Structure formats: C-alpha cells, structure tokens
C-alpha cells in the first residue's frame, strides 16, 4: 500500500505548518512503491485472513453456531414453503384464469336449427370472435364422461339438456362485463347467460392476496433473519471488544476490523440458506406419498412443481446476502463508537 500518499490523501490540505521539508528522512515510507500485483496479493491475503479467521470462530463454538443456523434455517424455510404452495396454486389455476367464454343456455323450446341460426347471427357481430354450438347430445356425452354419473343418466328417457352456444368475445377488457353479455341476457332466445368474468376476477383477487401475503411473510422473516444474524454478530463483537480495540490502536482500518465479522454473517446466512433448502426438500419428500395419491384421483391431470436448481441458488444467495447485511449493520454501530469525535 502506498502509505505516504494515502496518508496525505486522508489529511486535508494543511495550512502552512512548521513541517520542515528536510526532516522527512524518518517519515520516508518503506513500502512506498508497491506494484499493483503486490497490492492485489496483500488484498487477497487480507481477505483470506478474514475468511478463515471467521470460519475458525464459528467452528470454535459449534453449538452456538448450530443453534443460530437452525434458527435461520427455519425462519427461511417457512416463507419458502408458503411460496412453493402458492406457486403451485397459481399454476393450477392458470387455465381457469384465461377462461373468457360466454356460455349461453338456450330456451329448451329451441331446436338445433334455431340454435344454428342464432349462432350465425352472433358471428356477424364485430365483438364476437367465435361461436360454437353444443347440441344436447354432445352435452350429454360430455357430462357422462366428466361426472361419473354415466349409469344414472341411462335411466333418463329424454335428454333434459338444452342447446348451448359458447361465444368467445373479441378482446375482453379486464373489469366490466362486455355489452355483448348484457345484450345476450335480454335476448328472448337465451334462457341463462353465464359469464365467468366475476369468479375469474375473484380467483385473480385470491391469488393476488396470496401473493401479497407470501411477500409480507417473507419480508417479516427476512427481517427476523437479519436481526438474528445482527444480534449474533453483535455478541461476537462484544466478546472480542478488546481485540478490536487493540487492532484499531495499531492501525487497523474499519474495513479490516469489520471483515471477519462480515464473513461470519455471510457464513451464517449461507449455512442457514442451505439448511432451509434441506428442510423444504425434506418436507416435500414427507408429503410426496399422500399428495401422489391425491393427484392420482385426478387422473394425474395436475402436476406439482418443486423447487428448481435456480430457485435453490437464489435462496442461498439471498440468505448469504442477508447474513452479510445483518453483520454490516451490527459492525457499523460498533465502528462508530471506537473513534474520537
């Protein structure tokens, strides 16, 4: 490090002082012209020093470290599991969210020819993209397939189902019902007009609420993580106050003193993140059996997604960052106290 130049940079331009230019023989810096390579090596050495000394400190108190890491692991695992559950709910609802057809049940008196005429009328409209006709026969066979009441339906002598038009409107703005729906409702040929927008919006709201709830819980637990690490590092600092004071007296910069503690915070965060992942994967494994049976009853039409590699890496990265930040806050307070005003 270029000590002399740095010393001068840190000193505001002095007023003319009794500093004689000739008397610099003793003050001559001994390490004045270090190459960039040497400085990089020194920087690397200092970081290695912080890296290993912090790891040594954690290893020296395995129980205290394990407790802290456990606490962090659970604090991080909770929002992670909420998020997973929510993410799956969102995926499952994805198809439903897109539904925008208007289903028009026609009066039972109307026969198939009248239904086709009605469909042709509707197709002429500008705000209609497509219309399909479902005859009572189609409706019955569909119902037979989906409901599982096949045998019960055989008892019926007549087909009680009406003709149904499935109208797909052109670009539906989110929000109000399109005028098409209102017009269909007052049409004499229509018995019942079912538009999914209302409950689609409700589903959307529920998902939005879930998303916000997960975010709030995650933020609160992230704050808890920050506090746990900050407090652990603070106690660590108190235990080593004498060492810090000595280091400061013999010229350690704030950065040098702080570095091992920042690394400790990073370690806590990293280990906590890994533990949280282990907890989540363990929980996934534990519920896999019953969940599989449940999904099997839906003919495996639903597929659940677990935690991907990218998400796992993000979790570990974020928890490490949280640990570093917690340690930073704790050390910043102590550093400020160690200097004259």
């Amino acid at each position, binding site marked *: *490090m270029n*000590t002399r130049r*740095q*010393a001068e940079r*840190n*000193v*505001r*331009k*002095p*007023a003319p*002082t*009794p*500093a004689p230019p000739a*008397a*610099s*023989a*003793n*003050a001559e810096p*001994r*390490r004045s012209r*270090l190459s960039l390579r*040497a*400085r990089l*090596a*020194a*920087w690397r*050495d*200092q970081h290695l*020093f912080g890296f290993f000394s912090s790891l040594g400190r954690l290893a020296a108190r395995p129980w205290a470290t394990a407790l802290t890491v456990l606490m962090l692991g659970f604090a991080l695992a909770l929002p992670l599991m909420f998020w997973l559950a929510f993410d799956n709910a969102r995926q499952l609802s994805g198809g439903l969210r897109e539904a925008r057809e208007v289903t028009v049940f026609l009066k039972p008196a109307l026969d198939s020819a009248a239904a086709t005429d009605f469909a042709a009328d509707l197709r002429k409209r500008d705000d209609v993209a497509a219309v399909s006709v479902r005859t009572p026969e189609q409706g019955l066979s569909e119902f037979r397939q989906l409901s599982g009441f096949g045998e019960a339906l055989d008892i019926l002598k007549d087909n009680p189902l009406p003709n149904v038009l499935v109208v797909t409107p052109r670009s539906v703005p989110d929000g109000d019902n399109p005028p098409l729906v209102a017009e269909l409702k007052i049409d004499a040929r229509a018995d019942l007009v079912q538009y999914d927008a209302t409950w689609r919006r409700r589903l959307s709201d529920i998902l939005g609420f879930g998303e916000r709830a997960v975010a709030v819980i995650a933020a609160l637990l992230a704050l808890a993580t920050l506090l746990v690490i900050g407090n652990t590092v603070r106690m660590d600092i108190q235990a080593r106050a*004498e*060492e810090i*004071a*000595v*280091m*400061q*007296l*013999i*010229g*350690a*910069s*704030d950065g*040098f003193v702080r570095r091992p503690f920042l690394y400790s915070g990073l370690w806590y965060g990293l280990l906590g993140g890994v533990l949280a992942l282990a907890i989540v994967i363990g929980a996934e494994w534990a519920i896999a059996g019953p969940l599989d049976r449940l999904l099997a009853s839906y003919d495996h039409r639903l597929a659940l997604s677990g935690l991907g590699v990218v998400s796992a890496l993000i979790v570990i990265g974020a928890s490490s960052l949280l640990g570093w930040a917690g340690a930073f806050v704790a050390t910043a307070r102590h550093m400020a106290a160690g*200097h*004259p*005003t």
Partner: protein
Amino acid sequence: MITFDKVSKRYASGQDALAELSFEIGAGEVVFVTGHSGAGKSTLLKLIGLVERPTRGQIVVNHAQLANVRRRGIPQLRRHIGMVFQDHRLLTDRTVFDNVALPLIIAGTAREEIGKRVRAALDKVGLLAKEKASPVALSAGEQQRVGIARAIVGKPPVIIADEPTGNLDPQLSAEIMNLFAEFGAVGTTVLIASHDLHLIKRIGKRALVLDHGRLVDDYRPAPP
C-alpha cells in the same frame, strides 16, 4: 517529529487534563513524560495517537497536522506510531509470532516479508526462540517485550509507551528502558510516560514534567 502548540484537553466530564501545553520533540529523541498520577501523561500520549482529540491547540506528529486528520485517516496515522501499553494488550488466543505480525498484516505487507520482519523484531527484543509460544506462557517482562516487538515491527518513526514498566520489577524495568533508548539511537522518536523518577534519572534522557496538566519542567541532562 512531535510538536504541541498550546494544547488543552478538557474531558466531557469537565476535568481539565492538559492546559496550554507546548513542546517540541525532534527526530531520534528519547523523551520521558513524568508527573504524579492524573497529571496528564496518558492524555498526552492519547492525543498523539488520536485516541482523543485536543479541545484547543495544534499537534503535529510525523508532519501531519492532527486536526486535519479525518476519521478515515486515523488508521494510516497510527501505522506510523508504535504503541506500547502498560498491560501490553497482547491477543492471548494467538502465538507470539501472530501478535507481532498483526501490524504488518493490517498494513498489507507481503507475506514473504512478514516472516522476516517479525523475526527481526523478535530478535531485537531477545525473544526469537519464543515465536511459537502463547503470550500467556511468558513472564511479565517477556510479555512486555513482545508488546514492544509488535510496536517496532512496522518500523514506525514514532514510538509512544504508556507506563511500559508499570508492572515490572526494577531490574526488568531498566532492561526495557534501555531497549527504548536503543531505538532512539537508530533515529526513532520515542516518548515514554513513566512515574518512575529514579529510573528516568538513571537513563539520563530528556524529561517533560507535568503537574495538573501543565508543563512545569523540561529537564535536559547535560550532554556527556
């Protein structure tokens, strides 16, 4: 090398530790600061290392106006000042070698050079054989010599020592003081706070005598 110009220090408690103190110490001088306890010896040394700031007055150390040294500049300033403490303040969870190497690690000295310079410093205080020992295993005199090795390993132009022999018997004290006197001979400025007047007389160096924060005597022995 060290200049005090009308320096006063009043602590927040209202206690006046130093009043209108002015003196100048040249390069390579070995100077004692003496006086009864509470006379301001420790405060004087603390002002030099910027552990405390003066209430009034100017201090120049190693050509730096201390009033102009901002918080970020303090570590750099201290790297040019070797500090020795009464209770040596060694880190007991590290070896003697690691303790002495600390200032060099802090300053970012190359690793190959650290070993050489630590051994040179330990050799100078006569403890080369104890580099792997823990400070706890050493005698009081040896511990203080390790503290001195730590202070000189960075070859600072200024060394300040606060009661370095306060816990030592007279013979060990004399050894330590002679060690300091030797550093002066190689051009290092040494400032030692001590209340041991007997010892100071024997060493025969300049002494600043403080009384209630005022300089009452600047004793200079007649050149031999």
